[in-house]
């Protein structure tokens, strides 16, 4: 028996979300008194594989099948993960909530007839044969406590909810024999196109977000300067993306991306209920708005009531000064 981690890599490197899922899986494995194994698909250097040990992985099963190494396949990845899970008798299979993980996890759950706990925001408590976790529902407006009713579970870990925790082990690396077949490529990747080289807002520790208060896309330089200083991702409210001031993939909220950074700075966003639903898992919220009645202040930790065009230059100057003092 063991816990299995789906250790996704991008161009041979493990993403932060993968390492977070490893940290989460490591705690679960120790609660269950079993080892944490990982399955890694693709060409990955040994020192990168060893990194999984830092987060508690005892053994990495590597699959270097040419077809699956060349491109993602929802059916092929599913068969591979299921093959490893069955070979090692996995009690629980842990995923991040990356795009590819979200495509594979439910397939694996259906194949294993497993209880699927998606977007878990707490590490499970073990109650007899069941695992109990919390997850956010109603797009962040509520919290659901759920219990598994199957011997095997599939858990996807809500990004940025658990954090990175090191529990160093020396990970054994072992090749797992798996061959893809033509039927694994019903959906065939043609190419992957990068449209933004910026920091991923789901993984970012800090996100700076702008709303209609900016009055137009020409004023976004103010926000970008602040984000650059903080090494932050940039996001926006729904009206801003609807008006095409900013691209859709920056829209955070109920019908946009849901994020949970350490620090969320909302500037010129009033805080409609749909927006708050997408960001209220943020650990610290700063709101800058000229309207003291803006609903956003109700869930803010820190607020500045003022005109963003006056506040932002002062704020960036103060951060530059603080950075210079710490340099």
């Amino acid at each position, binding site marked *: 028996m063991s816990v299995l981690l789906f250790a996704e890599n991008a161009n041979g490197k493990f993403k932060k979300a993968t390492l977070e899922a490893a940290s989460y899986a490591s705690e679960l494995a120790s609660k269950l008194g079993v080892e944490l194994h990982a399955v890694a698909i693709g060409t990955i250097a040994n020192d990168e594989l060893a990194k999984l040990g830092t987060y508690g992985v005892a053994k990495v099963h590597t699959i270097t099948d040419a077809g699956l190494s060349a491109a993602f396949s929802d059916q092929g990845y599913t068969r591979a993960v299921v093959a490893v899970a069955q070979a090692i008798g996995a009690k629980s299979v842990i995923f991040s909530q990356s795009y590819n993980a979200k495509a594979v996890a439910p397939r694996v759950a259906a194949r294993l007839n497993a209880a699927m706990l998606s977007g878990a925001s707490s590490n499970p408590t073990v109650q007899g044969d069941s695992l109990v976790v919390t997850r956010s529902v109603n797009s962040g407006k509520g919290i659901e406590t759920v219990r598994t009713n199957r011997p095997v579970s599939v858990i996807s870990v809500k990004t940025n909810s658990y954090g990175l925790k090191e529990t160093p082990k020396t990970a054994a690396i072992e090749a797992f024999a798996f061959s893809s077949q033509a039927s694994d490529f*019903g959906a065939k990747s043609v190419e992957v196109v990068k449209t933004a080289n910026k920091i991923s807002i789901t993984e970012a520790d800090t996100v700076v977000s702008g709303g209609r208060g900016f009055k137009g896309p020409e004023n976004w330089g103010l926000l970008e300067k602040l984000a650059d200083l903080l090494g932050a991702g940039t996001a926006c409210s729904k009206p801003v993306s609807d008006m095409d001031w900013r691209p859709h993939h920056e829209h955070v909220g109920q019908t946009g991306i849901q994020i949970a950074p350490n620090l969320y700075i909302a500037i010129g966003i009033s805080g409609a209920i749909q927006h708050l639903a997408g960001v209220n898992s943020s650990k610290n919220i700063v709101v800058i708005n000229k309207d003291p009645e803006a609903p956003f*202040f109700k869930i803010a930790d820190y607020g500045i009531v003022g005109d963003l065009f006056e506040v932002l230059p002062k704020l960036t100057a103060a951060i530059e000064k603080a950075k210079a003092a710490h340099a």
Partner: protein
Amino acid sequence: MKSLVCISHVPDTTTKIQYTADGKALDKTGVTFIINPYDELGLVRAIEFKEKSGQGNVTVLCVGNAEVEPTVRKALAIGADDAVRIDCGTAAIDGLYVAHQIAAYAKDKGFDFIFFGKESIESNGSEVPGMVAELLDMPFISQAIHLEAAGGKAQLQRELDGGYESIESSIPAVVSCQKGIAEWRIPNMRGIMMAKTKQLAVVVPAVATDVAVVTEKLELPIAKGGCTYIDAEDPGKLVEILVDKGLI
């Protein structure tokens, strides 16, 4: 194209969520229900296929009790041809239960595409589409932002972090929809009138299975401790606090 569009009946996005006193269910008092917005994108894309080619069929499917019927009628008003409700009654359901019912219904109907939203705004699980694909052994294109079909193949784009992936898929396929694949539509009066006469079949669940996941409790997030205000003239104070807390 013959399409099946699976929809969820969810609280409107403006709803202030409350749960019943026992913490077991949503308090539906005063709540307006809508078609899950992402599911509606799949519905519109399916209707567009039919409009463009002048042939094909769009069936809407919802797993739920009689309460969901107005939402299903709205899908018919937008332009679906017929509808099916799998009557699960008032028993608790989960993603795997719903996936089993949908897969059993769709198995021998010859649908080219089975559409879903990328997630429901109620349970935010993104579970059912992938599960249905696995149960039917079909390719699954998740978070699709673009879909065309020609020569027995589908050309898609699926959203990725900071970009997208172009995909060529065999048909039939399961597609979960993200913004970009279609635009939302408001039903017109003619559509609303026609919807009243379209078929809405009610069928019993074909697969007897218990839930794999049990809801123990639903609650609201803990309210924040209140906002500390900082003078707009002196944002340096905010920087001091954030540095102290190790946030910047």
